[in-house]
C-alpha cells in the first residue's frame, strides 16, 4: 500500500470537538482557548501507508533518524491564524518546511502534518509529492498560495 493524501477523517471529527487550535479561539461565552497548538511535519518513506485513515502520528514508515533527519519531524511555522474568505475557511503555514544537509534513509513521498501539542499527536493531513531521495542536500516544501482557493487546509 502506498501513501495517499487527504485530510484525516478523525481530524474532521476533532475539529467539531475542538481538539485542534490553529489559532486562538474566539470566545464562545463558556470557554476560550487563548493559546494555539504546535503542529509538526514528518516525512514518510514511499513504501509507507499513510492515508486519511491515520489517527495519530507514529514512526511507522517514517524516515530513519539518520542523515540529519530527526524522527518526529520539524515544527510548522504558524504565524497566521485561520481565516475565512466568503464561504471557505482556510489555514496555511506561514513558512516553507525545510530540512537542510539531509541524507534521507530512503525514497520518500509524503509528509504528515500532526498536532504536536496533543498528547496522542493527533493526525491532521497527509500530503504527497512524488518519490524523492535526498543526498547531502536540502529538501524544501513550499506552501501553496495563502488564499481560499489554494491554502494547505480548507473547509469549503
Amino acid at each position: 500500500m502506498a501513501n495517499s493524501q487527504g485530510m484525516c477523517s478523525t481530524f474532521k471529527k476533532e475539529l467539531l470537538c475542538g481538539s485542534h487550535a490553529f489559532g486562538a479561539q474566539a470566545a464562545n461565552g463558556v470557554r476560550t482557548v487563548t493559546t494555539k497548538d504546535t503542529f509538526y511535519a514528518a516525512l514518510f518513506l514511499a513504501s509507507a501507508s499513510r492515508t486519511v485513515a491515520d489517527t495519530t502520528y507514529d514512526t511507522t514508515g517514517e524516515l530513519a533518524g539518520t542523515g540529519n533527519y530527526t524522527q518526529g519531524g520539524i515544527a510548522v511555522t504558524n504565524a497566521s491564524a485561520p481565516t475565512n474568505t466568503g464561504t471557505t475557511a482556510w489555514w496555511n503555514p506561514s513558512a516553507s518546511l525545510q530540512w537542510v544537509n539531509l541524507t534521507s534513509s530512503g525514497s520518500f513521498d509524503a509528509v504528515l502534518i500532526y498536532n504536536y501539542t496533543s498528547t496522542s499527536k493527533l493526525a491532521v493531513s497527509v500530503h504527497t509529492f512524488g518519490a524523492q531521495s535526498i543526498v547531502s542536500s536540502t529538501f524544501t516544501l513550499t506552501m501553496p498560495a495563502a488564499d481560499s482557493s489554494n491554502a494547505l487546509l480548507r473547509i469549503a
Partner: protein
Amino acid sequence: MDNEIPLIWTSKGNVPLDSLKMEAIWDIQKTYIKLIERYTDADGEVVKEGAHVYSLVGLTGESAVASF
C-alpha cells in the same frame, strides 16, 4: 584568490564543483512543481541531490448540512 577552486559539499565531503555533472530536473504535476538538483561524479554516482517542492494547492474538506 582568483585561482581558488569552488568546492561543494557532497556525500564524499567537499569536492571541486567542476568535477561534478549537475542536472536540474523539473517534475510538473497538477498539485505540485518539483525541482530536483542532482550532482553526479565521474563514476556516475549521485553524490548530492536536493529537491524543492512547491505545493500548488492544498486539501479541501467539504462541509455538508442536512435539510429538514
